[in-house]
């Protein structure tokens, strides 16, 4: 069920919930996955996103998200200048992603000093978002609830070991998705959790043999805990 607070909300800077707030959240997710400051940000925009980019401040919002701003940050309108001042290069390109793609789709490529990340996502209305690809892996992420992404080498026992680490903490796994490029090739696991995983457990996941990287997404796109 969609939350009432997503409907009467978010509290955001205008002008468009899907083209400004949603765009900001999409690149905020990319930043969370990059886990370091970006030096370069490239954005490829589909259909409605590309057509109305400047008018809706989508360009500023995308860059703002990559700078770590939240949707109600009044500095969103100055994001392009702020990025320039920090020496972050950014480019925008229209890209036809085909008739099946959501009209508000964007591919975001962030590069930091030591790593890069690419995501494909869509802004699906009212500021809500969906990530459809992470580094080429098809996923379905709303980034609202706590979630762990694991990239690892496909070998037996990985799912069990990961769920053991999480289970020890008494945290419930809400849902899970496991994908691989091919047998023994790179594999990917998405684990949705009912509560955020403490740092030491994330570290334990990172130390599992065969694990390449582990990403933590904790309510990046709204769904902020109400306490």
């Amino acid at each position, binding site marked *: 069920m*969609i939350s*009432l607070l997503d409907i*009467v*909300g978010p*509290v955001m800077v*205008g002008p468009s919930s899907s083209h400004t707030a949603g765009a900001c959240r999409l690149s905020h997710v990319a930043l969370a996955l990059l886990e370091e400051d970006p030096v370069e940000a490239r954005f490829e925009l589909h259909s409605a996103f590309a057509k*109305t980019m400047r008018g809706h401040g989508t360009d500023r919002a995308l860059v703002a998200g990559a700078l770590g701003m939240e949707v*109600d940050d*009044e500095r969103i309108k100055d994001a392009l200048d702020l990025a320039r001042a920090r020496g972050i290069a950014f480019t925008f390109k229209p890209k036809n992603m085909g008739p099946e793609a959501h009209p508000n789709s964007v591919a975001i490529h962030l590069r930091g000093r030591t790593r890069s990340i690419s995501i494909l996502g869509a802004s699906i*209305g009212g500021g809500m978002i969906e990530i459809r690809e992470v580094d080429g892996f098809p996923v379905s992420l709303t980034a609202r609830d706590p979630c762990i992404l694991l990239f690892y080498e496909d070998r037996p026992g990985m799912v069990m070991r990961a769920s053991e680490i999480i289970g020890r903490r008494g945290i419930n796994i809400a849902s899970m998705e496991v994908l691989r490029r091919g047998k023994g090739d790179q594999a990917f696991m998405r684990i949705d959790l009912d509560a955020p995983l403490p740092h030491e457990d994330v570290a334990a996941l990172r130390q599992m043999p065969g694990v390449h990287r582990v990403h933590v997404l904790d309510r990046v796109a709204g769904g902020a805990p109400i306490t």
Partner: protein
Amino acid sequence: MARLQTFADLIELAREGTRPLDEIFLDEEAAEREVPAERLRQTFLERWAVMKDSVRRGLAGGKSFSGLVGGDAKRVIEFTRGGDIAGGHLVAKAIAYSIAVLEENSRMGVIVAAPTAGAAGMVPGTLLALSEERGIDDAATVRGLVVAGGFGALVAARAELSGAAGGCQAEQGVGAAMAAGGLAFLLGGDSETCVHAAALTLQNTLGLACDPVAGLVEVPCVVRNGFTAMLALAGAQTALAGVRSVIPMDEVVEAMVRIGEAMPRSLKETADGGLAMTPTGCRIRNDLYQIK
């Protein structure tokens, strides 16, 4: 919201218990999020404060980003103060306040999407106008806001609320329906009446195109919020008088989804049709983006 998926479920739930609509919605959300309902009510009060503030900032005036809009909310309210009104203070305020929020939005000011930014005007605009005219305090007004939010959530369970997916009916149509439900609730309507208010309002926005000039959330969006606010008032007024929507709300929502699917892409936020492609619309776009 396992038991609450549709407007029919809502009417059922309201019938069997003694809880008013706002409590039903807050209880469901509280159960889902595992937080106390009172804490949620508090969050709604905070959002209501931001909404009122966005009306205030919007009325203070100032031009939009592009220079196309700005100052209309102030115009409407000042004209009203002069005494020349066609429709009474409630109507004039509802129009002015709804426009004010969107003017603030067009300046990249802080607003509360309801359900979207482009349709953020009519819920706060109409509820604030009513609360001022009837002397309803914040705590009571927020109950109407919760009902409006709950109505929006029920629609969103079936339909994507964006101009890109469903045209403006899915943004301002839904916003107006939410407002109508909230207004009817504040005016003492029972749950069925509130749902009829929303249904009557939504069905009268079906087919509304999303055709923003130059792709900006300015023309027709800003002034349109004032007009769809009127639909919300009409929806509440007629439903409270006993007018019933022949087509039930759940089916009106289904109709909206299908119309949205049938609409050409040019009328769904791409700025490739409708008002955006009129000679004046094109000229504005070309001037703005220096297209020769």
